[in-house]
């Protein structure tokens, strides 16, 4: 099954590398978001305390919304969705492949966003790099897990572009809370490992529960 998921991921990445459509639009949008926040919040070179943590996650979540909307839209426009679902592959492999593709895109955006926010908001985001990577990875996985499922479910629904954020944001509130709190803990002058570890553990639990639920639900909701 992992081989099939890998094949779907490779297909998506190949299309993406050739067109660059989702990667460029998502990244540009995320950077614009961060700039808007910088214009609004940075006064005389000073940014509000802890603001960087919230802005990082808002940018990731907004960018994620865009990427998720396009990830299945492309299959629908090219009318390859049915082919994908008719392929002799378990539905869970399709889900995993798509999920990994979305995560890869978001990680790409984060590689740009983290240094940019650290620079614009004078935040010490890179001070504890490994913790930062762990929190971002766990948070992105959780957000993308729910997002991929919802984007897939909505692909045939009317007004799917509007519905995706309406459904996705209330459900991913825990990821946003834990991500922002965990990142804010990293920005403190004295690192409290216990606090960071708590939020990381919460994010990982969320990931496990929601990936399991998604794998279970994907099968039953993706029927023609």
């Amino acid at each position, binding site marked *: 099954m992992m081989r099939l998921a890998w094949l779907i991921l490779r297909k998506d990445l190949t299309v993406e590398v050739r067109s660059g459509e989702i990667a460029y639009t998502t990244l540009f949008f995320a950077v614009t978001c961060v700039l808007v926040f910088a214009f609004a919040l940075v006064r005389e070179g000073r940014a509000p305390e802890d603001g960087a943590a919230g802005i990082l996650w808002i940018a990731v979540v907004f960018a994620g919304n865009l990427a998720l909307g396009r990830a299945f839209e492309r299959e629908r426009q090219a009318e390859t969705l049915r082919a994908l679902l008719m392929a002799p592959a378990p539905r869970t492999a399709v889900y995993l492949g798509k999920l990994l593709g979305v995560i890869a895109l978001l990680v790409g955006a984060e590689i740009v966003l983290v240094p940019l926010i650290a620079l614009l908001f004078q935040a010490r985001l890179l001070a504890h790099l490994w913790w930062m990577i762990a929190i971002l990875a766990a948070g992105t996985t959780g957000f993308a897990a729910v997002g991929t499922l919802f984007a897939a479910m909505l692909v045939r*629904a009317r007004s799917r572009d509007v519905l995706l954020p309406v459904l996705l944001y209330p459900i991913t*509130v825990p990821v946003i809370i834990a991500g922002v709190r965990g990142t804010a803990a990293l920005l403190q002058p004295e690192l409290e490992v216990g606090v960071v570890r708590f939020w990381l553990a919460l994010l990982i639990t969320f990931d496990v529960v929601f990936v399991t639920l998604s794998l279970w639900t994907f099968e039953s909701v993706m029927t023609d």
Partner: protein
Amino acid sequence: MPKWFVPAAVVCGVMFAFSPLVIASADYESTMGLVQKIFYYHMPSAWMFLLSGIVCGIASVRFLTTGDPRHDRTAWAAAEMAVIFGVVTLVTGPLWARRAWGTFWVWDARTTSSLVQWMVAWAYLILRRYGGPGSDKLAAGLALFGVANVGFIYVSVNYWRTIHPATTVVPKLPFSMGFPLWYCVAAFTLLFVILLQMRVRLEEQRATLDTLYLSLDEQR
């Protein structure tokens, strides 16, 4: 309509009509004064709000596993109940909190998870209304995630700080305050059951009408 429906509706109406008298007879809480009486409507509606969420979640899981549209109708009705009781809870809560805590809103575990649960219920209804065909299964998936979600929010916000009164207060209440509370809980539970039954019945009749139309079309 089942036989019990009309008597139940009458009893529920009478109970609500008398509830101000019962609440007025309760002991006067000295520090908060009259505002404390909000609690007799706030807590029962909050419980019904929670119950609606649970009913919606269980019905959705059963719909996803069995595909029986009856469970779907129950889930839909319960989601609407969640929005209604959520409004009552989220309006009465801040009114009480203004006096008790000095502020309308505090981001503590219960308030935050209630607000998000209310938003998930709205998202559910929006999906049903605008999702088009096939939105029943999507909504069931959403409800499933929504139920799992509330626990996470509760844990995460609880880690900060909680000033909300715990439910352990309830058994310790003196009789003069406990009786009005349980009276209101009974009235609200009855209201919940009646509204749920009405809503499910409406959807059943709609489904019957649809099948009748379809069979009429086939005969032509």
